[in-house]
């Protein structure tokens, strides 16, 4: 049913993603799909990485750790550098899903609150505008 699953990952809050990561791994095993973990960072230093190269390396290490944890045979990672992640995250993820050739996106999102009426959450925006299937994990 699905052959390429994309999972957006925020390395700064990886501990809050466990449910989404588990879901993605289970689906990948069920359909023998490959999994691509995608991260977005700014080029300026952040709490996760000091340079874009370090960020890419951490994303790769993260995906390998996921592969080992869930015995996934086919994982990859992609690191995107955005000029202004606060504003551009949605569009960058949209581009990443095309680049990865994904047919399913599994992403974590917080429970929507009052603010979502003004600014859609990233997952909300993504689910509204993406052409491929999106599984939002809360």
């Amino acid at each position, binding site marked *: 049913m699905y052959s390429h699953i994309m999972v957006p990952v925020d*390395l*700064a809050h*990886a*501990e809050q993603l466990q449910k989404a990561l588990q879901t993605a791994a289970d689906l990948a095993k069920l359909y023998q799909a490959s999994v691509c973990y995608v991260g977005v*960072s*700014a*080029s*300026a*230093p*952040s*709490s996760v*990485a*000091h*340079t874009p*190269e*370090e960020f890419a*390396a*951490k994303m790769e*290490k*993260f995906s390998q*750790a996921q592969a080992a944890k869930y015995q996934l045979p086919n994982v990859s990672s992609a690191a995107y550098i955005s*000029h*202004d*992640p*606060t*504003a*551009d995250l949605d569009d960058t993820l949209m581009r990443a899903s095309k680049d990865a050739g994904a047919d399913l996106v599994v992403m974590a999102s917080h429970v929507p*609150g*009052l*603010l979502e009426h003004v*600014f859609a959450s990233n997952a909300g925006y993504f689910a509204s505008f993406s052409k491929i299937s999106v599984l939002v994990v809360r």
Partner: protein
Amino acid sequence: MTESTDITPDGDSTLIETDYEIGQDNINTQIGPVNVDVHNPVFLISGLCIVAFVVLTLAFQDSAGTMFNAMRVWLTSTFDWFFIASANVFVVLCLVLVVSPLGRVRLGGTDATPDYSYSGWFAMLFAAGMGIGLMFYGVSEPLSHYASSVADNAGSPDSWAPLAGAPGDSEAARRLGMAATIFHWALHPWAIYAIVALALALFSYNKGLPLTMRSIFYPIFGERIWGWTGHIIDILAVFATLFGLATSLGFGAEQASAGLEFLFGLPASDTTKVFLIIGITGIALLSVVAGLDAGVKRLSEINMVLAVLLLLFVVIVGPTVAILSGFFHNLVAYVQNLPALSNPVGRTDANFSQGWTAFYWAWWISWSPFVGMFIARVSRGRTVREFITCVLLIPSLVCVFWMTAFGGTAISQLVNDGVQAVASAPLELQLFSMLAQLPLTEITSFLGIVLVIVFFVTSSDSGSLVIDTITAGGKIDAPTPQRIFWCVFEGLVAIALLLGGGLGALQAMSVSTGFPFTIVLLLACVAIVKGLMSEPR
């Protein structure tokens, strides 16, 4: 993630080893529906101090105005030599870096690629760096220097003429007036910005420290920059930026409404001004929410196109040959007068060197944390040589051309055609009076007003991004509501000061922050040289 996170990039790395993790002092919590991620204590202290200053200034208007103005005058007249000498140091350091082998260092490491194309990059740094000043001083400053130089009392202690002036000699006075104006708008201000921007970019992109003012001081204060030493530097930067922006937003609204009155007969009432501030803040708000690429960059590019259109119009419709040849004559006059104008000691033109030059330097320097931070944010991937060429040399040439076109045309109108209207118009209307002497006045004046407003928007949006980054401890991915907060806060401070009075008082105070920042910038020069020496070239 539970694994260890000790990964460093391959190849030559000059990252500074520190245990400080970016955002470790941040408060990350949920207030009502809003997610916040702010630096403790920089966010709270700067916010509260700004409110306190506004309230106190409104409550004690007369004494606050007198006090802050006296402080500003005292600083620029007592330390004029210090401002002038320091600015010279910045220019010389930049020029040395261009030709030295250190110019080969690339911001972001040897393999980094530029974040922005030349056109987008240049549009953004120009819109943030000078913007509005060119609109108002482009006509009035050359005229003012010309008038004081040609006057009979030029050269006497009570004259405001640059150097010895040129009493009665119209041609010499014109050359001197243009040289003095260019002196205030070309190499020196851009060198001030370049130093701050270069230091920030170097310590952030190459050394891995957070993109905030305190990082520049790592080579000098070491780990202490994560404590109160750093907090104070960052708070001071927020202070200078917000008051600089809010007061010029207030004054800008006054000037734009004067232009609207002149053009359309719209009364320049408080209501008009408040609506202008709300309008400018509203557009800036849309811009910061849309982000750096979709908002700030796009507006800066629109701004640039409009400015070029207006400039081309003045060149083509105005005295074309005089402007084109004037460009080279003024450049020569600038170079000839540069040693005398930038001489910090033994000046006989105290009114000029203290009231104009030292004031300008303090003003540019008080803007430097904001403009420098913003330039650094968009300059990753350039070599030091490219960086200085594009941040120092090209903008300087553009300013020479702009001043020649606008100021030179106005002086020609006064000298050759005997038009007194421009020279006698109030400062904020001189640009429009000059345009009124040229054809198609309605169109160009309207374009002028639109440019004034867009220039304010591009300062306001980039300023909000900068304050947001500093108050989030150098994180540039802080939640959207925070940048909205700073953008709105800035508009509110401007409205409060406009209605309550006190714009002048707080502007004097923000210019006064130029003094501590001059020391900051001198230390930054040391840090830049130290930092560049350890980079692979």
